[in-house]
């Protein structure tokens, strides 16, 4: 696509001409200024705070590396990282597998596909706070799922994960997968529909069976979609805050703490803005390590298409 466009007005000269030439930049400048200050300026600001003596209020007095040292010596941070690893791997893994299975099943010329798709995807429209509230109620050991199973006659059924500090993190996975797998399904379904029918026909003429065609031909073609959904899900996982707050409040104890909840409580309730900032910097680095290469390759690919 050509990017050069004639600017007849520019020949007018004078103030109007200058304005006409620079208008695009002027129009874009509020956004650039906002991004410069509120994104990049704030990143620098918070990074700086993570090297200061800031406690209840942000101060500029230099403290050096010590907040970072304290961060890494903090057992709750250690737990938060461990939880992020468990939550991240299971949430991304299960949501991807469930989403993929649903997409493949829906791709078999299903009657009422639209209705079923709508049902699978609606949780994505809800706030994580709503999701957390509902699942908290359903998983509550007294009156929730446990009672339901007892009423069905399964008297020994026990499901107390949400109040069990070894298992509570898995309830976050359950609620997270429920909320996001429909989105993965929608992405994969769009990908399946975009696969060229000719390729599939050619494969089936060669005698390949349906599962083989999916596994060997279609899935490899959908690699970009696997990547996109991985990026979206990992990004959601690292930022996860609301869901944990509504579902478990980070507890029991701090057994479901995640970096995002750790940052918030250090900063706003434990009067350790320095340590909170240090943890925020770690979160940013993790996200950037995933997003920057991804965005770079996406933009480069778009540019390639344009030329």
């Amino acid at each position, binding site marked *: *696509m050509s990017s050069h466009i004639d600017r007849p007005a520019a020949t007018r000269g004078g103030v109007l001409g200058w304005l006409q030439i620079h208008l*695009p930049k002027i*129009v874009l400048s509020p956004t650039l200024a906002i991004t410069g200050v509120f994104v990049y300026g704030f990143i620098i600001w918070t990074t700086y705070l993570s090297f200061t003596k800031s406690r209840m209020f942000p101060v500029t007095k230099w403290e050096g590396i010590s907040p970072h040292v304290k961060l890494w010596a903090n057992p709750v941070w250690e737990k938060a990282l461990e939880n992020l690893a468990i939550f991240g791997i299971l949430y991304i893994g299960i949501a991807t597998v469930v989403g993929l299975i649903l997409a493949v099943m829906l791709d078999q010329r299903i009657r009422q596909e639209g209705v079923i798709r*709508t049902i*699978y995807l609606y949780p994505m429209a809800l706030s994580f706070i709503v999701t957390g509230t*509902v699942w908290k109620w359903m998983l509550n050991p007294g009156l929730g*799922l446990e009672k339901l199973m007892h009423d069905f006659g399964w008297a020994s059924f026990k499901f107390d994960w949400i109040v069990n500090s070894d298992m509570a993190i898995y309830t976050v996975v359950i609620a997270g997968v429920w909320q996001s797998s429909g989105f993965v399904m929608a992405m994969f379904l769009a990908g399946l529909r975009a696969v060229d029918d000719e390729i599939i026909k050619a494969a*089936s003429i060669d005698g390949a069976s349906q599962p083989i065609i999916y596994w060997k031909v279609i899935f490899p073609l959908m690699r970009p979609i696997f990547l996109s959904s991985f990026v979206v899900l990992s990004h959601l996982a690292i930022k996860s805050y609301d869901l944990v707050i509504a579902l478990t409040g980070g507890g029991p104890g701090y057994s479901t703490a995640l970096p995002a909840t750790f940052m918030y409580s250090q900063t706003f309730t434990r009067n350790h803005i320095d340590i909170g900032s240090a943890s925020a910097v770690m979160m940013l680095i993790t996200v950037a390590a995933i997003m920057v290469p991804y965005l770079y390759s996406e933009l480069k690919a778009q540019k390639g298409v344009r030329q």
Partner: protein
Amino acid sequence: MSIQVGGQLSSTQKFWRFVLYTLLIVFAFVYMAPLYVMVVTSLKSLDEIRGGNLMMPPLDPTFDAWVKSWSYACVGVECTGINKYFFNSFKMAIPAVAISTFMGAVNGYVLTKWRFKGADIFFGLILFGCFIPFQIVLVPMATILGKLGLAQTTPGLVLVHVTYGLCFTTLFFRNYYQAFPDELIKAAKLDGAGFFRVFWRILLPNSLPIIVVTVIWQFTNVWNDFLFGASFASGDAAPMTVALNNVVNTSTSVKEYNVDMATAIYAALPTLLVYVLAGRYFVRGLMAGAVKG
């Protein structure tokens, strides 16, 4: 893809179709269950909740919990219901969505049709802002909002949501306008149309689909936000999500699950309605949010 439809199905094929539909329906039940539980619980009395179980339909449906949630529920220490917070969310979402969408449209226009040197780099820098973990901006933002006198106010939240929504709205419009033919614009320019005229007369009238996608995406994100609301407006200006969390965590002597669920429904209703009425556009926004245009 290629399981035959119509004609004669062999008995194995019939068997697999049966398995397939069964699985799809089972999954549909699993996805619907929380919504069902939310609704039936909100329609039961506390006695019925304690006596029955999650799936039991309400024997004596009552909207008491809905009324209580709306007008009397305790959000923290104040027991005047969630109505105020419900409207707070609208007061926050409507201007935030309108401003960020409009700015995104203009940005997308500049970035595709009035390209200047370095435009791609600027776009990349703006785009990265979509994906930062917002924890990195909380303390500076709180400081700035305090200095501007916007802490604990709805306009403060509008500012925050416009700021961090801009990258998405810019992304959506940029990708959309990129596919818009340059020839039309060139012709208009030859006729003497300037920067704004081209935008108003040519691009904007052709932008309805992407405007709908952007408005839905932004509305859903702003309405569903909790982190910014809890950080910058936890008091009287709190949005609905923060109020819901407060209602659930307010320690009263009896845990009123029906009121909690009614409150959750109020919090879910606007975005759910948008989804049901304009699901197609909602999905398109989700896809575009994964960067692909």
